[in-house]
C-alpha cells in the first residue's frame, strides 16, 4: 500500500511532458538566477524546526518522569532520566524490545534484498528483452499497485493460520518479497541506462541470457537497486498493519512492540516516548548515512521516464 506512493510511477503521467532533453542546459543557467533572500532561509528554518521538533519533544518527555508533562514550571531542557526510561522499555517483559529490534532488522533486510533481486530481474526483462505480451504485462504490474492490502488480509490470515505461520516472522517476509513499485522502478531505470547495442553484442558473442543479465544488467542496475533497497527497507521497517495482525505479541517487530508499550504504560508517557525514540534511532542512523541517496532517489523517480 505504501508502495503506491512511488515516485517512479510519476513517469507514467510525466511521460506526456515533452521537454526532457532541455533539462541539462537549464540546470547551468539556473545557478545564476534568483538568489534566495532572507525570507527564504527564514521559511526553511521554520520547516526545519517543524521536522525536528517532534523528535526533540519525545526526547524532552522521554528524559523526564511521569510528572514532567503535568509540571506547571515546565522546562524546555531535557531531564536526566532517559537512560532509566530506556532501561524500563528494554527490560519490560511484555514489550520484548530486543527480539522486536532483531526481528525488524532482519525481516526488513531480507525483504529489501528479495525485492531488489526480483525487481531487477523483472525490470531487466521488461526494459530490455522483447517478448510477447510484455507491454500489457507491465501495465498489469502497475495496476496491481492500486489493490489495497486490506483486500487480502482475511484470506491471507486464514491461509497462514492453516499453515501454522501466524506468529512467525516469515509471515511478514513472504508476502513482501516482490513489489510492483520495484519492478516498475527498475524497468524505468534500466530502459534508460543500458543501450540495446550492448546486449546485442553480448548475444552475438554467445553469452546466455542469464550471463547477459549478470554482466550488463546487474552492473548497470546498481545505483537504482541501492535506492530501491533503501526505500524498501524503510517501508518494511515502518510497516504496521499486517505485522500487527499476524504476529504474536511475544515475538513482534518494533512498531508492534511500540503499540504494546503504549497499552502497558499509557499513564506514563515518559516511558512511551523514550521507547519511541529508542525504536527510531536505528533509522535515524541510517538516514545520516544514506539520507542523501534517499533524497536523490525520490527526486530522480519523480522526473525519470
Amino acid at each position: 500500500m505504501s508502495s503506491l506512493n512511488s515516485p517512479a510511477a510519476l513517469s507514467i503521467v510525466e511521460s506526456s511532458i515533452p521537454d526532457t532533453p532541455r533539462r541539462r542546459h537549464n540546470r547551468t543557467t539556473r545557478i545564476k538566477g534568483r538568489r534566495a533572500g532572507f525570507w527564504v532561509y527564514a521559511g526553511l528554518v521554520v520547516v526545519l524546526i517543524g521536522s525536528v521538533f517532534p523528535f526533540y519533544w519525545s526526547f524532552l518527555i522521554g528524559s523526564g518522569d511521569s510528572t514532567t508533562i503535568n509540571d506547571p514550571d515546565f522546562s524546555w531542557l531535557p531531564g536526566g532520566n532517559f537512560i532509566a526510561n530506556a532501561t524500563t522499555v528494554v527490560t519490560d517483559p511484555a514489550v520484548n524490545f530486543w527480539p522486536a529490534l532483531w526481528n525488524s532488522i532482519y525481516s526488513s533486510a531480507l525483504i529489501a534484498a528479495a525485492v531488489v533481486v526480483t525487481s531487477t530481474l523483472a525490470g531487466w526483462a521488461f526494459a530490455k528483452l522483447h517478448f510477447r505480451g510484455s507491454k500489457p504485462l507491465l501495465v498489469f504490474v502497475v495496476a496491481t499497485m492500486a489493490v489495497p492490502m486490506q483486500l487480502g488480509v482475511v484470506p491471507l490470515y486464514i491461509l497462514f493460520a492453516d499453515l501454522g505461520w501466524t506468529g512467525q516472522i516469515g509471515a511478514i517476509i513472504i508476502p513482501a518479497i516482490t513489489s510492483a513499485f520495484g519492478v516498475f522502478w527498475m524497468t524505468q531505470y534500466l530502459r534508460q541506462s543500458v543501450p540495446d547495442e550492448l546486449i546485442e553484442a553480448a548475444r552475438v558473442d554467445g553469452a546466455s541470457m542469464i550471463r547477459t543479465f549478470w554482466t550488463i544488467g546487474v552492473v548497470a542496475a546498481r545505483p537504482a537497486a541501492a535506492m530501491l533497497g533503501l526505500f524498501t527497507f524503510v517501508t518494511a521497517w515502518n510497516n504496521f498493519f499486517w505485522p500487527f495482525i499476524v504476529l504474536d505479541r511475544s515475538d513482534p517487530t518494533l512498531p508492534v512492540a511500540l503499540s504494546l508499550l503504549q497499552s502497558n504504560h499509557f499513564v506514563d508517557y515518559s516511558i512511551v516516548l523514550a521507547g519511541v525514540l529508542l525504536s527510531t534511532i536505528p533509522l535515524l542512523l541510517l538516514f545520516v548515512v544514506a539520507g542523501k541517496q534517499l533524497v536523490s532517489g525520490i527526486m530522480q523517480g519523480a522526473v525519470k521516464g
Partner: protein
Amino acid sequence: MTTTQTRPPASATEPAAAPPAGRPVRVLGFRQNLSRWDLKLSPYLYISPFFIMFAVVGLFPIGYTAVISLMDWDLVRNSGEFIGFGQYVWILQNPQFWTALRNTFSIFLLSSVPQLIVAIFIAAMLDRNIRGKTFWRMSVLVPFVMAPVAVALIFSNMFGDVHGLVNGILTDIGLPAVPWHKDPFWSHVAIATMVNFRWTGYNTLILLAAMQAIPRDYYEAATVDGAGAFRQFTSITLPSLKATLIFVIITSTIGGLQIFDEPRMFDNTGEGGPAQQWLTITLFLYNIGWGEWNFGRAAALAWILFLIIILIGLINLAVTRTLVRDEGIRAPKARKKQKGVRA
C-alpha cells in the same frame, strides 16, 4: 516507453536469425536449440517471481475475500456457511460504517489539501538558489524515516486533552483548550497533523523535482515582460506542476483511504474513540475481523473499501484524462504553427 515501441520487431528476431543466415545451412544443434529456448523463455522466467507472488498473495486473496464475504465464517471449523449478501447488508446498515466512511474522508481531506499547499510552497523555497541544498532537502525528509506508529504516539501526547503541549500553548495565549479526543472534527485535525508531518517532505521533494524540470527561460522571459515573483509562480510554476500534482493526489488518495496506524494509536484502546470519533474504515475492518473475529463481515468490508478506492480512482482517472488530453491537443497545434511559420 517509446524505446520499445520503435525497436521490438528488429531486435527480437535479429540475434536468433542472424547466425543461420550468414553461414552455410546446417541442422540446428543442441546448443542452438538451447539458445533459442533460452532467448524465448528467459524473459518469462525473470518476471515470474512477481506474477507467482501476486497470484498467491494478491489474486487468490482477492477472490477468496469475495467468497468469504458471502459466508458466515466459522473460525473453529475454519469454513463458512453461504449466506449471500447478508454481510454486505449488515455493513451498510451499520451506522458505524457510515461514521467510519465520514471520518476517513474527513481525515483524508484534512491531511491532503493543507499538505499539498504547504509542500508546493516549501518546494518553491527549495527551488530557489540556496546554499546547502542537500542539507535543506534532507531536513524535510527526516520525518519520513519515523514509523507512523511512532509519529502517532508523539502527536497523541502533544495533542493530549488535559496536559498536552498544544492545549498548554493555547491556554497560555488565552484561547480555550481544544477537546482533541472528544470532538470528531478536532480528532481528525490531530490525526491529519500526524499524516502531514510524515508525508509533506516526501511530496515536497517530488514537487521540487518537477519544478526543476521547468525550463528557466520561461522565468527569464516573464521577468523581461515585467511579471513579478508571485505572478511567475501562479502563471508558470503551478500550471507546469499539473501532471505531478495529479500523480501526488492519486497516490495520496489511495493511501489516505486506507489509513490505520495513526487512528489506531490515537488512544490506548485503539478502537476509534468511545463514540467512534476517529474510527476509520480500515480500523473498523480490524475491529470486526480481529476484535469480534467475524471474518465474513471483515471480508465484505474489505470489498466495499476496494470498490470505494476503485470509484475514487476512476473519478481521478477521468479528471486526469481530460486534463492530459487538453495538453495533447494543444501541443501538436503549437508545432503545426511553428512549421507554418517556417514554411
